[in-house]
């Protein structure tokens, strides 16, 4: 990211329709209290049941509304920011055929259901940028004529499916860099929840690091949040205190990189290029770009050809530009590994043993990207995730 201060300013310039809408304001706009909401929801459910059903909108439309629900603030310089960039890219690509609105800071709770109910009643396509599980699927079931997309979700119905990024390969490549940059082999991971995402960050990273540094290990500290600079700072400090020389973080904000910069270790991340927050420490980032996917899905809804996919739709991820201080030999080693991965090398290739000593993949066995999407075990050498 070139401009560290670009959050906030863009929002005020948006049109009336996509005016920044907080969850509270959205709820207030219904003009009623809780009882009214329930009544409204029931009414809307009744209305939608009168419409022809059959999985997503079945007829072509000249223009559609797309509603986005974000787990964090659009100004987070991270996850939600990238989704909002994707939303804007979709608007640019489809022009007047699509209008979009978003609700930020939607908690994973019953309140989310109300937000989705609101979005579903005014949109043809609803996108949630994290897994809301039954808070989303319940609403989807009440709106069979609306298409639903759930990022990192695990529910597949006639009008709802999950999409996500394929991050086994990029983590493996970053692991190669980590193994070379951390001379001791100690890699720290600041994660959120003990979910498949955390396993798919740490396992391939260890495998990549071990190709260049047999002593490599990955220590994880999970802070049960994607946006908590206070805990992320403390976790990063604890990892560095324990000897970590390379920190990888999945946080939606860049505080870990500031700590890495201050304490003289390397830092790499998800989401977007955050080098301005730690130019010396910065290694690389997987760039999240959702615009093409959102455009494609919105176009399908417009054409009336949208159908829910039956397994997770994984988007490819790529590394960004290297940090200014990453040595050439590291960059070359990663490029060489990248060629191998593109040539068909699967990082999850047996023999692989988990932390309890159970052989998870026998010699020659592999785990496909879709299989890895629901992984729930750590490799020997990774601690702190399970």
């Amino acid at each position, binding site marked *: 990211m070139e401009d560290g201060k670009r959050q906030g300013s863009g929002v005020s310039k948006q049109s009336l329709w996509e005016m920044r809408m907080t969850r509270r304001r959205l709820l207030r706009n219904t003009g009623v209290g809780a009882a009214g909401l329930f009544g409204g929801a029931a009414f809307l459910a009744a209305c939608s049941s009168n419409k022809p059903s059959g999985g997503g909108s079945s007829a072509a439309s000249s223009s559609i509304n797309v509603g986005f629900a974000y787990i964090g603030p659009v*100004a987070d310089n991270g996850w939600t920011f990238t989704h909002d960039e994707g939303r804007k890219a979709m608007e640019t690509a489809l022009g007047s055929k699509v209008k979009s609105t978003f609700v930020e800071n939607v908690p994973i709770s019953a309140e989310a259901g109300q937000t989705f109910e609101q979005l579903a009643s005014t949109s043809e396509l609803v996108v949630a940028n994290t897994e809301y599980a039954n808070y989303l699927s319940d609403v989807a079931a009440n709106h069979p004529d609306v298409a639903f997309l759930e990022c990192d979700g695990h529910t597949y119905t006639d009008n709802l499916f999950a999409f996500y990024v394929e991050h086994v390969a990029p983590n493996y490549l970053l692991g190669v860099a980590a193994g070379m940059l951390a001379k001791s082999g100690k890699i720290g991971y600041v994660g959120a929840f003990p979910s498949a995402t955390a396993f798919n960050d740490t396992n391939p990273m260890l495998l990549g690091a071990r190709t260049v540094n047999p002593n490599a290990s990955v220590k994880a*500290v*999970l802070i049960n949040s994607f946006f908590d600079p*206070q805990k992320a700072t*403390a976790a990063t400090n604890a990892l560095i205190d324990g000897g970590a020389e390379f920190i990888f973080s999945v946080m939606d904000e860049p505080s870990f990189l500031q700590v890495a910069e201050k304490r003289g270790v390397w830092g790499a991340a998800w989401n977007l290029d955050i080098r301005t927050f730690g130019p010396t420490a910065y290694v690389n980032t997987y760039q999240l770009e959702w615009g093409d996917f959102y455009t494609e899905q919105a176009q399908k809804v417009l054409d009336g050809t949208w159908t829910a996919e039956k397994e997770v739709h994984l988007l490819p991820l790529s590394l960004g530009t290297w940090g200014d201080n990453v040595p050439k030999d590291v960059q070359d080693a990663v490029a060489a590994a990248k060629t191998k991965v593109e040539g068909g090398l699967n990082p999850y290739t047996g023999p692989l043993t988990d932390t309890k000593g159970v052989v998870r993949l026998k010699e020659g066995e592999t785990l496909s990207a879709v299989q890895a999407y629901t992984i729930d075990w750590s490799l020997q050498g990774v601690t702190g995730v399970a």
Partner: protein
Amino acid sequence: MNIFLAALRTAIDAGTVVVCAGMGELLTERVGVLNLGQEGLIGIGAVTAVIVSANSSSPWVALFAGMLAAGVLGLLFATSVVIVRTNQVLTGLAVVLIGVGLSNQLGNDYQGSPVAHTFAPLKVPILADIPQVGPALFDHTLIVYLAYVVLPVVVAIVLFRTRHGMNLRAVGENPAAADAAGINVAGMRVLYTTIGAALSGAGGAFLMLVFTTNWSVNVARGRGWVALAVVIFAAWRPSLLVFGALLFGAMISLGFIAQEQNWGIPSFALTMLPYLVTLALIIIPSALARFGFKVRSSVAPAGLAVPYFREER
């Protein structure tokens, strides 16, 4: 640095917020006012520091602005409970809601970007060069030394070694007697409630200018409530309060060390640790007294949370 000394270093920083807010609450309670609004005051102090830091050139300006803003909210609270004599518990809870809500609203545009101007650590000459211990104890920002050393000493001297402090305590113990002795009860209460709130604001500002230089919603994260508990644990004494706060800080940093060292405790459980210890701090003295152990009688100021009506004297 040894991992436990490193943890101590984090604990000292983490505890500073509680020292500031706790000392503010201690002064407030010593004059007989219960200000439950710590959580909100920390939030206001923090958000003001973030905003002012972004629009000024010095962290000191941000720190004082944070104290000022929290002081203004404290003054409002004091006016309400001392002059208008509203219920202190309810008004305090209102301060929490106002402070947390307002700070979240004001801070919304600052999420995800670092605080502009922050405090740098100040090494204590000679002491900071002691191997291992030096970096853990003597390589902190100036605010940390002020909070752990200067503040408790000053408060203790004022409270227990000056006539003014005696008057102050008299207002908290027996406002009627203090009033009869010619002490301005209302004035004393308003003054120290405001000063107390400003100290809590300093805690919030510290949080943003030193501890985590990134704004996030609900910034106080329960530290305000912990500060209230630590005052009780400390039996309203400044010296003990410092240890209570440090213990709380230690629990926070231990939660992360435990994960890093792979002790096998789930991260959700570790998150509870500081609050469990806080609970224990409150329960243990009472439990010991219950079973016949001699504990320092932790008597609250007798006039605590009781509005003073001169007419009912």
